[in-house]
């Protein structure tokens, strides 16, 4: 991967370096060539001088040889020197005669200019002169000494040629020596300036100065000597010098560019690959759609969920898959996108290929420039159904907590169960002591032709107390029947049976149904305890009433009547006494009056123990009696439109009686208003006083007893008694229920 990025960079770098080197080499080569050329020019120029010197030496030799008697004189030689040498620019020449028996070579004839200023000068002392003289003797042409530095500091060489001096017939051996200064040899090069600095080497010393420059040389051979001409190698200049750097710079820039491009390309590739992987591997459901609402892409998770391949989805509107009930909402939310929302989120149900709906939670983001919508969804079906179930349980639990009638709870349970599990039918049935089950309430047809009252005999598969699940294959799917027992206080009270046709119900269905069965059990247990409580209160109240009635009867018809009888008997006895026993008569009469007073007292005492009038006259006279006897004035309004059962009248009587007692005893009221009315199937009593209020409902047993009495009849008792605002007691007792329990 890395190499793929580096390869182009490496290539560019290598080419750059190669180009750099090549450009450098080409520059060098051009300079080399130019330098060589300059050297060649210098060689040609120097060679020309050497040849000129050689010609002069030849001419001098010819002069010496051709000149006849009496031989060349010094004056002639000087003259020749000034005539021949001066125009050429050469300073000096000599004719040298070897001194016999010695190595000395004496300049016999001299031009008398340095370095041969004096005749007789020993040129043999000059470096390499002897060697050149020897070579000249053997050589037909002139030869040259090495280029040497002379004693006076000048550099030069001698061109030597064997030149005998003819004197008459006689030939005197000798040599002509022409001094050639190095400056003269280099003069043309200096003049032409074509070659710049030039250094000339010919053995010995070097002439000219190249300084520190790298020399480029060329050689030529002349006068039996090898001359080396050196010129400084020129620097590479101008575009040629810049070119390698331009190449190098450009190359580096290019490779850096290639690197950057490579990296970004790699990143793009990686990003694309990551995006693809996310799209393909994400458990989230991802759809790409056009602004027309049609699928452009669907990731595998979405395909799997909906059960369609991407090919089947592409081009189809997303809305096609949305549950009909959710479409309007979905459209409304997506319209917000059109109106400029940056993102919208919503939930809807989507149909998969098998027809089942899944709840999806969408987050939709538009990319307006590309007219594309990215929609990401999560499958929240489980959560939804859980929430659904929780809500259903809560609704039922609320009913139970409110203490509605079991029938109402059962009806709610079968509705919720049928809806929640998609059941075709659901019933609540109750087990009879014989093992049969009786349907109390049912919805749907799927459980069978069941209605309230349907009886499943013992042994009927439906009347299975342990709970059950039966599944059977049907043309339209599996028919599942599940029974969940309703356990009340450890016994199987009844069963919830539910039936659904379609996919087999999930394994946790029983567990979920059990929650509902539990609520039903609670409702039943509550109702039973409530009924028991009511019944027991009713029994207590009835027993108390019965006792009061008996006491009242015993007092009035028994004790009181007996006192009256005794009084009568006493009176009769008095009548029989003879008139003379006046004192006894009077005593007995007093006793009889005492008996009568006792009877009267007994009557007063027993008043109100039990309202005997209720037995015959009904509630209104009894209440009127209470009102008359009240210590506080009473405004009594009775609008009772029907005869009431006696126990209800008794209850009403005691409510009013107790309220009046309280109004007189505690409230310091100046008036009490009593309203008794039948409203629908309820009798409502309101006793309101204008007293001090602040009555504590917990205080005293009077109100508690009343509450027991009223609630025993399924009624309610409410006390309102804000301080300073009087006391109001309201009792409402259902008439029908009272009859039912009577």
């Amino acid at each position, binding site marked *: 991967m890395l190499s793929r990025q580096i390869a182009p960079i490496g290539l560019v770098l290598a080419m750059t370096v190669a180009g750099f080197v090549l450009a450098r080499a080409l520059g060098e080569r051009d300079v080399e060539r130019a330098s060589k050329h300059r050297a060649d020019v210098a060689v040609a120029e120097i060679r020309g001088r050497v040849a000129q010197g050689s010609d002069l030496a030849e001419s001098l030799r010819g002069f010496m040889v051709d000149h006849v008697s009496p031989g060349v004189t010094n004056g002639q030689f000087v003259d020749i020197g000034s005539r021949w040498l001066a125009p050429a620019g050469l300073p000096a020449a000599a004719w040298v005669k070897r001194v016999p028996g010695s190595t000395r070579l004496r300049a016999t004839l001299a031009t008398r200019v340095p370095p041969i200023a004096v005749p007789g000068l020993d040129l043999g002392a000059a470096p390499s002169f002897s060697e050149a003289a020897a070579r000249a003797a053997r050589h037909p042409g002139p030869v040259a000494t090495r280029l040497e530095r002379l004693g006076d500091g000048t550099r030069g060489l001698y061109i030597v040629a064997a030149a005998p001096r003819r004197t008459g017939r006689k030939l005197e051996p000798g040599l002509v020596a022409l001094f050639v200064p190095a400056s003269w040899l280099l003069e043309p090069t200096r003049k032409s300036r074509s070659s710049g600095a030039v250094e000339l080497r010919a053995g010995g010393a070097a002439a000219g100065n190249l300084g520190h420059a790298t020399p480029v040389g060329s050689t030529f051979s002349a006068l039996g000597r090898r001359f080396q001409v050196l010129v400084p190698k020129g620097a590479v200049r101008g575009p040629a010098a810049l070119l390698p750097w331009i190449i190098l710079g450009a190359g580096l820039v290019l490779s850096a560019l290639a690197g950057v491009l490579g990296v970004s390309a790699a990143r793009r590739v990686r990003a694309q690959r990551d995006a693809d992987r996310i799209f393909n591997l994400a458990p989230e459901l991802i759809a790409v759609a056009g602004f027309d609402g049609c699928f452009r892409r669907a990731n595998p998770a979405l395909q799997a969920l909906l059960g369609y391949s991407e090919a089947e989805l592409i081009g189809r509107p997303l809305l096609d898959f949305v549950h009909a009930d959710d479409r309007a909402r979905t459209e409304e939310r997506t319209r917000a996108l059109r109106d400029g929302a940056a993102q919208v989120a919503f939930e809807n149900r989507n149909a998969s290929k098998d027809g089942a709906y899944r709840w999806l939670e969408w987050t939709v983001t538009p990319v307006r420039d590309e007219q594309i919508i990215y929609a990401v969804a999560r499958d929240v079906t489980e959560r939804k159904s859980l929430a659904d179930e929780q809500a259903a349980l809560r609704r039922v639990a609320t009913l139970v907590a409110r203490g509605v009638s079991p029938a109402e709870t059962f009806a709610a349970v079968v509705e919720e169960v049928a809806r929640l599990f998609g059941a075709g039918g659901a019933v609540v049935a109750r087990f009879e002591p014989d093992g049969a089950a009786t349907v109390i309430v049912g919805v749907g047809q799927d459980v069978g032709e069941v209605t309230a009252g349907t009886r499943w005999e013992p042994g009927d598969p439906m009347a299975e107390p342990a709970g059950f699940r039966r599944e059977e294959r049907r043309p339209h799917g599996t028919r599942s029947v599940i029974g969940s027992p309703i356990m009340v206080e450890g016994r199987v009270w009844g069963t919830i049976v539910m039936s659904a046709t379609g996919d087999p119900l999930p394994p946790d269905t029983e567990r979920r149904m059990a929650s509902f069965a539990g609520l039903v059990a609670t409702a039943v247990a509550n109702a039973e305890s409530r009924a028991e409580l009511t019944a027991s209160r009713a029994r207590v109240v009835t027993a108390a009433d019965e006792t009061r009635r008996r006491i009242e*009867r015993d007092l*009035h*018809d028994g004790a*009181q*009547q*007996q*006192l*009256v*009888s005794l*009084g*009568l*008997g*006493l*009176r*009769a006895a008095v*009548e029989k006494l003879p008139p003379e026993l006046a004192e006894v008569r009077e005593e007995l009469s007093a006793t*009889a*009056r005492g*008996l*009568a007073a006792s*009877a*009267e007292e007994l*009557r007063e005492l*027993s*008043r109100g123990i039990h309202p*005997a*009038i209720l*037995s*015959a*006259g009904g509630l209104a*006279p009894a209440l*009127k*009696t209470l*009102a*008359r*006897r*009240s*210590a*506080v*004035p*009473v*405004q009594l309004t009775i609008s009772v439109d029907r005869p009431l059962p006696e126990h209800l009248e008794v209850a009403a009587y005691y409510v009013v009686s107790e309220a009046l007692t309280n109004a007189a005893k505690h409230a310091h009221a*100046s*008036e009490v208003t009593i309203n008794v009315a039948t409203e629908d199937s309820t009798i409502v009593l309101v006793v309101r006083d204008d007293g001090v209020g602040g009555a504590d409902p917990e205080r005293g047993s009077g109100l508690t007893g009343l509450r027991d009495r009223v609630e025993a009849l399924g009624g309610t008792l409410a006390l309102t008694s804000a301080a300073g605002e009087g006391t109001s007691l309201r009792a409402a007792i259902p008439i029908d229920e009272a009859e039912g329990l009577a």
Partner: protein
Amino acid sequence: VSAKPRVVLADDDVLLREGLASLLERSEFPVVAQAGDGTELVALVREHRPELVLVDIRMPPTHSTEGLDAAREIRDEFPDMGIVLLSAHVEVEHAMELLARGGKTGYLLKSRVTDVDEFLDTLGRVARGGSVVDPALVRELVDARRRDDPLAELTPREREVLGLMAEGRSNAGIGRQLWVTEGTVEKHVRSILSKLPLPSTEDDHRRVLAVVAFLEAR
């Protein structure tokens, strides 16, 4: 009306019934028959056509208002027969019920019978055509507390007079009771009639009924 009003007596308490019978026998009220319950009473009344019926309200079988029911039946059948109800306790409704059905009616507490003279006087008044209401009942009616009570207009003496009117006493009777002259009573009665919305009537029964109804309804 014979000098000795014949009486049919009904009470389930044999002891009391015998006591009453003996008292009446001794007091010029011949008891022609005795009954232990309402049905028997009605049969005996039809048989003997007495001038006066003395009946306990509460009798078998239910011990509630059998006596009242029988009295109602008798009243319908024999409008001129005197009927005295005996009750163990005050029940205004019962008294009103009986009074409303006609004169010659009495409503007494049982304990009243031990005051023999008063009791016999009461029976005599009923037999003679008057209506009588037990003083305890009247007291309950008069004592009942009312806001804006019309009785507040009356003087204490007038209240007394009103109560006695309710008991079924004539002006003369009231005068005797209060140790005043009948003329003084008449003056009080006129004053009462001017203060209260009561009709002026010479009929004893109507007066009782009107006063009791007024007291009950005020």
